[in-house]
């Protein structure tokens, strides 16, 4: 497996590529690793093209021209209008929690563009024959396949301590994409913000598509508990939310993805309230014991 990094969209993109070696034919000719360079160059182009069109930091980008009024949306490129339409679609699906419109009226599609780039990059890799890969663009991750003899184990940052990990989850072809969105505000002033210890500090969404994961993570931070409930009800996603006070919320699908300890079980503590897993039935334990 090799690691490749490059800079784009104001962040660093890390790509891991594995040779796709089958386990069922040990004496088969070792698969020739597809040429990385072509694939990586194309991925870079995908990111740079999207950045050039949609970056609000570049005054010459198409989106900036729309933002300052010199280019009407109706005259913009089909790609721009397509992205706008997608964003509006997500706004509907999240009941307004995700929106491309900033409070100051500027159209901001950057929330969507990074994950679109990741998605396209994934398709590029697949076209070049890479079936096992991971793409991490600034904290949003898409994986493909499963590394042989191992798994795509992904850590989730603790918003309260960025050098530490809250937990680790296993990404797989069924759950290939994860995105995390954070709230920048601290607001713990007890006189003015009575709700802040309940507000969402960080939301991590694991989904089938990176765009879905990214949009929903952003929506949950923006919309709070209502959006969280709506999302977990309507979308097949695994969600972990970290509250400002440090508490954690997770839905059953997320619990199933947590990397387990050696005995494969959660700690059984009758003073807490673990959720019922209806997405994936719990395997019957082979050697039931009394909880410690």
């Amino acid at each position, binding site marked *: 497996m090799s690691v490749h990094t490059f800079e784009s969209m104001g962040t660093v993109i890390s790509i891991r590529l594995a040779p796709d070696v089958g386990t069922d034919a040990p004496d088969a000719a070792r698969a020739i690793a597809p040429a990385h360079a072509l694939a990586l160059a194309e991925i870079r182009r995908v990111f740079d093209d999207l950045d050039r069109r949609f970056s609000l930091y570049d005054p010459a980008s198409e989106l900036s021209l729309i933002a300052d009024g010199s280019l009407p949306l109706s005259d913009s490129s089909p790609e721009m209008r397509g992205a706008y339409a997608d964003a509006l679609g997500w706004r509907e699906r999240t009941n307004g929690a995700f929106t491309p419109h900033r409070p100051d009226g500027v159209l901001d599609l950057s929330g969507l563009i990074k994950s679109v780039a990741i998605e396209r990059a994934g398709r590029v890799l697949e076209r070049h024959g890479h079936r096992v890969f991971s793409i991490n663009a600034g904290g949003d991750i898409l994986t493909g396949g499963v590394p042989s003899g191992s798994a795509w184990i992904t850590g989730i940052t603790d918003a*309260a*301590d960025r050098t*530490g990990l809250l937990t680790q989850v296993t990404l797989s072809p069924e759950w290939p994409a994860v995105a995390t969105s954070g709230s920048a505000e601290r607001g713990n*002033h*007890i006189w003015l913000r*009575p709700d802040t210890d309940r507000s969402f500090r960080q939301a991590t969404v694991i989904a089938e598509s990176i765009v879905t994961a990214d949009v929903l993570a952003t929506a949950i931070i923006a919309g709070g508990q209502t959006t969280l409930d709506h999302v977990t009800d309507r979308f097949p996603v695994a969600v972990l939310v970290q509250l400002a*006070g440090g508490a954690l919320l997770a839905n059953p699908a997320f619990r199933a993805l947590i990397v387990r300890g050696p005995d494969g079980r959660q700690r059984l503590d009758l*003073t807490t309230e673990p959720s019922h897993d209806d997405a994936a039935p719990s395997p019957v334990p082979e050697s039931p014991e009394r909880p410690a």
Partner: protein
Amino acid sequence: MIRTNHVGVDSVAHVAEPARRFLWRQRRADTLEGLSWFSFAVVLALFLADGGWTYFTNIRDLPTGTGIVAGLIGSNLLLVLLLLAARLPVVDRAIGYDLALAAHRRLGKPVLYLILAHLMLLLIGYGLALGRDPVAQAITMITTMPDLPQAFIALTILVLVVLTSLVIVRHKLPYLGWYGVHLLTYAAVLLALPHQFGQGELFAVGTWARWYWLTLYVGTLAAVLVYRFLIPLARNLRHQLRVAEVRAEAPGVVSVVMTGHHLDRLAAHGGQFFGWRFWSPGLHLEAHPYSLSEAPNGQSLRITVRQLGDGSHRLLSVRPGARVFFEGPYGLFTAAARTTGHTVLIGAGIGITPIRALLEDIDTPSGGLTVILRGDDEEHLYLRREVEDICGRIGARLEVLVGLPPHQGRTWLPSAEFAAGQTISTLAPDIPDVDLFICGPKPWAELVMRDARAAGVPRHRIHAERFDW
């Protein structure tokens, strides 16, 4: 047929006015103290109601649970501490400000120990859960969790306050230095407040506990603000006290007479003391506690002070017209503290001054009041002439004991009287059914108290003016 109990009607004993007042005072003191103890139970109950007992069901959560409890009790105790020093009238009238202050000083170290324990146990507890050693855990907390840096600063302030209050250190510090650090306690309380509400679930939004805890804090800080700062300020602005006259009573003893506006409205009594801050070189910074040496007459206030090494020698240099800032009146060393009809007043040296003031306030029928003055020599019987005049006027018995105490034997009496076998009972025949007021140097006063207890005077009838605070 109804039988009436005639015996009862004839012998109904009317509870004497002083005894009734004493009972009322005792009830009030008990209520205050009882409420303080009860508040600890309340905060612990809130902790339990929040599911806190679960911390104690397994060994791993034990440090965390104990740490939280230590923090809760420590902060609650800190609030009690602040209230004790807040010069609350209800506290002064129930137990006397001097006693309150003594309790305040005793509680300082326990508060610090509890909060240090709170920190240590939580570092261990969280560290165990998250796999970090206490130091790394502390660093993580300070650098990443909101409100915790302030809490650490608050703890540092508390440590400093206690350290500078240790007798050894306090003597080496200038008064202003010590006082400044001490006042930082309020800052510590405010700094530690956010983390109590922001961390954990106990005081989370929407819980009763949150309102209760907030009310406790707001109430305490408001009480401190009003009674410690605003009311004294208002009183000073209203009365505009100034020095009218400074005169030497005896070598090393000086009387200061002060006048001002509306002094008749100042509800002070003989025997009470004030904290005085003279606006004069060297005296600005410290508030000295001195008792009044004559009962307030509505026109002026007088104190009589012996010059010791604590800056009191500068009083001689106070010019008439100098502004005086005062705090008070404080103290239960008053005629109102009596519980019976018979009173014995014993004053030694400069301790005679509050006795002299008290004397004017007592309206006892003659025969029920004995005054004993004690001095190493004639010179030390300050204000003797005034005391004699008053005793003669109201018909009180006066005993004057002059002379050094004997070399052998510890007694409060002069050697002559001691050798003659005099005791407190011979000097004050009504003992033990009297209220005994004692004022003088601490070792001497303790000897008097020992004799009085031996003679059967119950503790609640011995009133001592503490000059050592």
